[in-house]
Structures are given as structure tokens and as C-alpha cells.
């Protein structure tokens, strides 16, 4: 029974975390949000996990520096597709490591021109340490610390070979993340909250030194756990990034804001194989973001765990 309950909870948490996970980073290389902290998550009884996730999204428009929203103009469009290999391994009862290797394809159409390009993206690796497991104490929530990094293994936009930079698959900089995650179950419901801080290291392009601002993110999610170990989750993720520094000078109105809403589900095919999926949207209306694209899309994934 304990194992069943642990699986129950972990599936829901996995569902929620994967909603929050690499949406931005994978789909829009240049707009990588600091959310790839837990690419895949192990249940307490699992020792390792591997899987494949397919993700697709379309750009709805863009937010200006002060929150104004403009739809994609006539004759232009953009879609992104990402296939990611996911893996996780348990080191100790409380510590697990995870990684994501993405392959990205982008189709970008501008008036009078269109192209498709892609390649390997930025690899994400992360670690999660559960100081308190969700079920460990009756009154305490689960408490975990997560750290991660995104490595610039993809191609930065300015190094792209194609004219619309569809073969850009990375941000060109190392990105570091740290987060605290809380989770608590109430009957069939599981509630979680995650706070995250991310920082990208400085990078230099053609003598131009840039450091993006520190990013702070918050995720709230609620999941419903079904008796067959399936789970459904709703989540909202908000992030705010400070202004960038260019050539040691703070560049005003370059900070970014994003709100993403998502619904996700997990369905166990067997004790070792599970399917999961999600749909997500950045609200395409003014003041839900700044200096960002608004996107909508979905993902499906198959995971095998032992």
C-alpha cells in the first residue's frame, strides 16, 4: 500500500513538474526559461527512468517591453517541434539526478520567406534532494531543493547558418538554476508550489558582452489522483527576469515576464511504463508577458522506469 501511495503521488508530481519543465527552453531556444530543473522525476521506489517526449508549439504573437501584445502578422508564422530524451537515476533515497537531451526543429515563415531548421539543443542536467518526502511526516509537506544547469550545446542564434535562424537551437550561455519545492497531499488532491531562481552566465559575441538578468519564477499546481494511478494536473507558472546588462551597462526595458498555464495528465500503462501529456498556453493578451513570445502547444511522453 505504501508503494502504491508513493507511486500515486509521484506520478502526479511528475505530471506537474513536466508541465513546468522545459517548455520555453526547448521550444524557443533564445527564450529559455529557467525551468528545466527537474526534467524527469523518479518515484520513491524507482531507481532509474528513461523516456522520450515529443513537444510541439506555435507562436501566437509577442509581448512588447511594457506588456503590449501584438498578434503574429499576416503572412508570418512559427512552429516549434522538440523530441527529447529524458533520463533520471537515483543516487540515494533522497537524491536523484536527471538529464534532458533535446532535438529541436523550427519552422519559421516571414512574409516573402520561410524555412525549416533544427539540431541538438542545450542539454539540461539537474539534481533533486528531498529533505522531507511528501508522505514522510503526517503534517509536514514534502520539501525538496533542486539545482540544475543548462549547457550551451545547441547553436546560438547569431551562429545560425540559415537566414531566419531556424537552425538556432540554444541560448549560447550556461544557465544555472536553484529551486525549493513544496508539496502536500489532501485526500485525492495534491498541491504543490515551487520557487526558482535562475542566472545565465555572461557571454560575449563579436566583442559584445551580455548578461541576462536574474530570473525569479513561481509555480503553483494542483493535481487529482485517480484510483488507477492516473493523475490530472493544472498549473500556473509565472516568471520575471531583470534587465540585461550589455557592455557593463544596464539595458532598460529588456526584462522579461511570462505567465504560462497548463493542464497535464499521466496514465500508467503498467507498473513500469507510463504515458503523459500536456497542453499549455501563454495567454495571448496584453500584460500577461513582456519581451516574450506568446505560445500554445502540447506534449506527449512515454517513460519507462525500474
Amino acid at each position, binding site marked *: 500500500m505504501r508503494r502504491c501511495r508513493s507511486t500515486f503521488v509521484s506520478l502526479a508530481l511528475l505530471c506537474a513538474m513536466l508541465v513546468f519543465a522545459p517548455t520555453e527552453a526547448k521550444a524557443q531556444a*533564445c*527564450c529559455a526559461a529557467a525551468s528545466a530543473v527537474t526534467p524527469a522525476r523518479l518515484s520513491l521506489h524507482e531507481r532509474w527512468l528513461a523516456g522520450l517526449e515529443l513537444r510541439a508549439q*506555435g507562436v*501566437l504573437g*509577442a509581448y*512588447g*517591453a*511594457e*506588456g*503590449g*501584445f*501584438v*498578434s*503574429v*502578422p499576416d*503572412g*508570418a508564422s512559427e512552429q516549434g517541434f522538440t523530441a527529447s530524451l529524458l533520463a533520471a537515476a537515483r543516487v540515494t533515497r533522497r537524491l536523484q539526478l536527471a538529464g534532458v537531451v533535446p532535438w529541436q526543429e523550427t519552422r*519559421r515563415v*516571414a*512574409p*516573402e*520567406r520561410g524555412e525549416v531548421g533544427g539540431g541538438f539543443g542545450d542539454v539540461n542536467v539537474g539534481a533533486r534532494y528531498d529533505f522531507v518526502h511528501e508522505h514522510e511526516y503526517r503534517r509536514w509537506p514534502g520539501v525538496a531543493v533542486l539545482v540544475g544547469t543548462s549547457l550551451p550545446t545547441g547553436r*546560438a*542564434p*547569431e*551562429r*545560425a*547558418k*540559415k*537566414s*531566419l*535562424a*531556424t537552425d*538556432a537551437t540554444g*541560448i*549560447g*550561455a550556461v544557465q544555472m538554476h536553484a529551486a525549493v519545492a513544496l508539496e502536500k497531499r489532501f485526500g485525492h488532491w495534491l498541491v504543490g508550489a515551487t520557487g526558482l531562481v535562475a542566472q*545565465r552566465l555572461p*557571454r560575449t*559575441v563579436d566583442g*559584445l558582452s*551580455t*548578461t541576462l538578468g536574474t530570473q525569479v519564477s513561481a509555480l503553483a499546481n494542483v493535481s487529482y489522483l485517480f484510483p488507477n494511478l492516473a493523475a490530472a494536473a493544472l498549473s500556473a507558472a509565472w516568471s520575471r527576469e531583470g534587465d*540585461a546588462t550589455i557592455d557593463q551597462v544596464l*539595458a532598460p*526595458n*529588456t*526584462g*522579461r515576464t511570462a505567465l504560462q498555464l497548463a493542464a497535464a495528465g499521466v496514465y500508467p500503462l503498467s507498473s513500469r511504463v507510463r504515458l503523459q501529456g500536456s497542453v499549455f*498556453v501563454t*495567454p*495571448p*493578451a*496584453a*500584460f*500577461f508577458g513582456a*519581451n516574450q*513570445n506568446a505560445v*500554445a*502547444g502540447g506534449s506527449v511522453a512515454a517513460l519507462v522506469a525500474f
Partner: protein
Amino acid sequence: MGVRSLATLLFAGAALLSGCSSSPSSEDALAYPATAISSLGTYAIEATVDGGAPIVRGVHGVALRVEPLVGGVSAEGLAITIQPWMPAMGHGSPYDGAVLEVGDGDYRAQEVSLFMAGRWELRTTIGPGGERATLSFDVR
């Protein structure tokens, strides 16, 4: 109904309820054509993108008009380089083409990729001293 249409419908109500505009606020917009003074005050530069405002994402030619602000300085025969850059995203776009002189202070950059909506800069160096100037555009 595509994903874009569905999402737009879902959130159109929220935007209406909150009184949000679906277009950028006036303080959001930059003046066009873009103008800048070089870092030592030697040149004034004006940049216009083919097609004019609003600038739509894509690959464009950019015309640069250089006016000397200091006596005895010529606007002709200048070495000019540009780096298209998105400051909010921390990246640029591929551009390794030369800036060609048209004559009488006019220069032209071909095939400048402004592939994403948002604020773009042309980080420009000009003249024998390598003076810097930044020309900003909003792209939609």
C-alpha cells in the same frame, strides 16, 4: 480551428474583462526611422528598413544615412559594421555581410535577419575610430 485560433478565443474574454489593449501602448513604440549619434559625437546615423514601419519579422535590407557632425569630417568612404542584436533575449542574428557604400553618405546592409518579434538593435561601429552607435527598431 487551429491552436492559435482556439487560444485566442479562450483569452479574448479575459483581455476584454481586464480592459487590456491588444496593441502595444504608445510608450512602447520607438521612433522610426531609428537615429543615433556615434559615441564620440562625430556622426549622426539614420537607419531605415526596407518596407518601412511597422517592421515585420523577416530578412530585410537596411539603409544607413550618415551625416558628419564635426567640421572637416567626411561621410564618405567610412568603414561600417553592424551586429543585429536582441537585448532582451541576449542574442543576435547571423550577419556577416559587408555594409556597402552607396555614395554621398548613404550605406546599405543587405539581408539583415530580424527573425523574431520584439526590440532589435543594430550595434554599429563607424569610421576610422570605430565609434559605436546603437539603432533600435521594434519588429512585429
